[in-house]
């Protein structure tokens, strides 16, 4: 059985990501990892909420945040979540080309998001002299948003590695779980972002 489990329309199982024991394990293990990540981000959110008014005389949430950029970033990331759903849709239909295409779109959106984030940080640092070290609020803000940004970066590297590695050989039962698990990760990043734009930016604007 060391032959590779290459897929064609005849051998396409209903859920290719869970068709092998390895796939099932990966699927479950990754969900649990996301459960742990939930706690991880909860700790960051808790810390941020406890410190968001500790500005030590520096700029406050209301001074800093602008809504336009955050709105654009939100739309970028939300859309990338949809495009990765499209990718999984084509995976289930065993359409490798289209899957790669949509994953590509996802990556582009992800990079755009990351660009916006870097621009934003740069803006705060240069316009407001608001850095990681200027106050407890600064530390908490950059750590929370930065952890999310780090997740996005890692996700993009992961995605590129997957796409390039499998570009030539198409879909099989060995790599289907990998793609699927990546999409879970990507959605989770989006989930975290929903709370970041709500708790950090919108609530920060409200006061």
């Amino acid at each position, binding site marked *: 059985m060391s032959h*590779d489990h290459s897929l064609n329309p005849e051998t396409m199982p209903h859920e290719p990501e869970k068709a092998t024991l390895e796939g099932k*394990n990966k699927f*479950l293990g990754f969900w*649990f990892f996301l459960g*742990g990540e939930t706690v991880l981000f909860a700790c960051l959110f808790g810390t941020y909420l406890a410190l968001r008014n500790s500005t030590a005389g520096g700029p406050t949430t209301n001074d800093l945040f602008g809504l336009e950029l955050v709105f654009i970033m939100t739309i970028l990331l939300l859309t990338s979540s949809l495009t990765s759903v499209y990718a999984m849709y084509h995976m289930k239909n065993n359409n490798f080309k289209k899957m790669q295409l949509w994953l590509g779109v996802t990556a582009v959106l992800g990079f755009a998001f990351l660009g916006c984030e870097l621009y934003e940080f740069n803006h705060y640092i240069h316009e407001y002299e608001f850095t*990681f*070290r200027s*106050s407890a609020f*600064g530390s908490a803000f950059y750590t929370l948003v930065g952890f999310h940004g780090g997740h996005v970066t890692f996700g993009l590297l992961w995605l590129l590695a997957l796409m390039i590695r499998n570009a030539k050989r198409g879909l099989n039962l060995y790599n289907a779980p990998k793609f699927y698990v990546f999409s879970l990760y990507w959605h989770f990043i989006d989930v975290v972002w929903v709370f970041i734009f709500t708790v950090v930016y919108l609530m920060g604007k409200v006061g």
Partner: protein
Amino acid sequence: MSIAATQKRGFGAVLWDYLTTVDHKKIAHLYLFGGGFFFILGGLEAMIIRIQLVRPENDFVSAGLYNEILTMHGTTMIFLAAMPLLLGLMNAVMPLQIGARDVAFPFLNSLGFWLFLFGGLILNCSWLLGGAPDAGWTSYAPLSTTSPGHGVDFYVLGLQISGAGTLIGGINFLVTIINMRAPGMTYMRMPLFSWTTFITSVLILFAFPALTIGLFLLMFDRLFGSAFFNVALGGNTIIWEHLFWIFGHPEVYILILPAFGLFSDIFSTFAKKRLFGYTAMVFATILIAFLGFMVWAHHMFTVGLGPVANSIFAIATMAIAVPTGIKIFNWLATLWGGSITINSAMLWALGFIPTFTLGGMTGVMVASVVADYQYHDTYFVVAHFHYVIVGGTVFGILAGLHYWWPKMFGRILNEKLGKIAFWIFFTGFHLTFFIQHFLGLMGMPRRYWVFLKDQGLDTGNLISTIGAFLMAIGVIIFFYNVVYTAVKGEKVPDDPWDGRTLEWATSSPPAHYNFKQTPLVRGLDPLWVEKTEGKGKMTPAEPLGDIHMPNGSILPFIMSFGLFIAGFGFIYQVNYTWAYIPLFVGMGILLGCMLIRSLKDDHGYHITKEELEREAD
């Protein structure tokens, strides 16, 4: 590799085998070896503590060194001794108990071990590099953020790395138990040790991220100038206390639940009775884990959180006595009416009941907020937690080792030595720690480098130190027993205790594929079921066929080594720019290995049916 495994090989081959192994049974050996090593280290530190406190105003060690030793004792014992030893037992036994050929993620399993080991090493490197961490195993800020030198940095990176290993191990166990049980092994037929492994892994999954974040914040403050705990810039040091205890309290149940599980198995085996109230035992375990997440602030009663918070956390804490009590009484009821064999394993288990009950009861006493205003941070608390940790976890590990040694190594630990070690350790233990309850109430705070003359604390401390020496003798006898057994221990049959659960249905030590044919489970205590109602051995659930096995890999070792190097880079980039080299090289190694792992297909290999048939039964 499959068949040659039993043949004699050179040292290099064995070493390479262990460095690359992904076999859970060998990883178990590694965990036991690593954990045992750190246990001796932590024990030596404990002995230094006790020698320093043998008489008032002693100057055996200096004040700064005392704090380092005390911190390293707590940290080493909890993270590098107790947990790895438990993970070792889980690795050795749990897959066998549920009738699995392997764990779900053999590669990650090995990665988990190497991360733990290199984390422990980095932590202990601090001794050689300018001093160990000295802010207590709890490392409260701002003492930890302002502690001079790099001690606390080693604490942060060491725990971060080994913590990642533990988290990975936890996820591996979870998926193994959910996906890889043998046919018929329903959840409610799993042996209690497998159950507690499962619940413990859940605790690991949700508790360790809090530690991860706490350590990150500490690291950012110390190494990158952030201000989480810098009060002048609006920081708040209580956040660390919360994060630490949100992790820390579940952690103590991570330490005790596996012990509960293995005691359940041991009691029912040696009483020759089915575990009394199996369902209640399972739900009590779940309840303890659940409640364990909402009691963390009982370590912070004196922080001044206010009467409302204190009361809520006190009541939640006390509630844990109920499920734990259910367990104690169910064990007693299991023994009741049984036919009890008392050997070394059983001695440790029997010693556990009164000892842990005492420790649990002092736990409820410290949970009583206003009383805790007196107990907190005194030797009363030191007594409480050594009663539960040593009396529960360490007794449990020793019981488990005696019980499963024949399964793991095919030889039985010497009974006579085992019994002597138990009695000496047991006496020494109570001598050391019982008196500490009173020392605490008589006005001796914990983490005291010296206690002053004329405060009425001399006798108590002397007794305590004497007890500690007895404990050391007990431990030395145990290790002697291990060596003795390895050299001329008695070989035993596969099922020396007339066991009840599946691990006793395999050979001792088990073949690397565990079960030639996956067994069919027909009830709780499956082997016992077959012994009383069947052929006396397990019925296979499948015809003999090819067995799929994972390939070994050196990558986990290299990845952990990369992190180890990067750790030094992180620590020293504060002082030297060259330190960015190890930082980037180390992270590069890590990422490179991850890339190799994800780019290189690894389909494992198969042991063919023919090979299996050739292997003589």
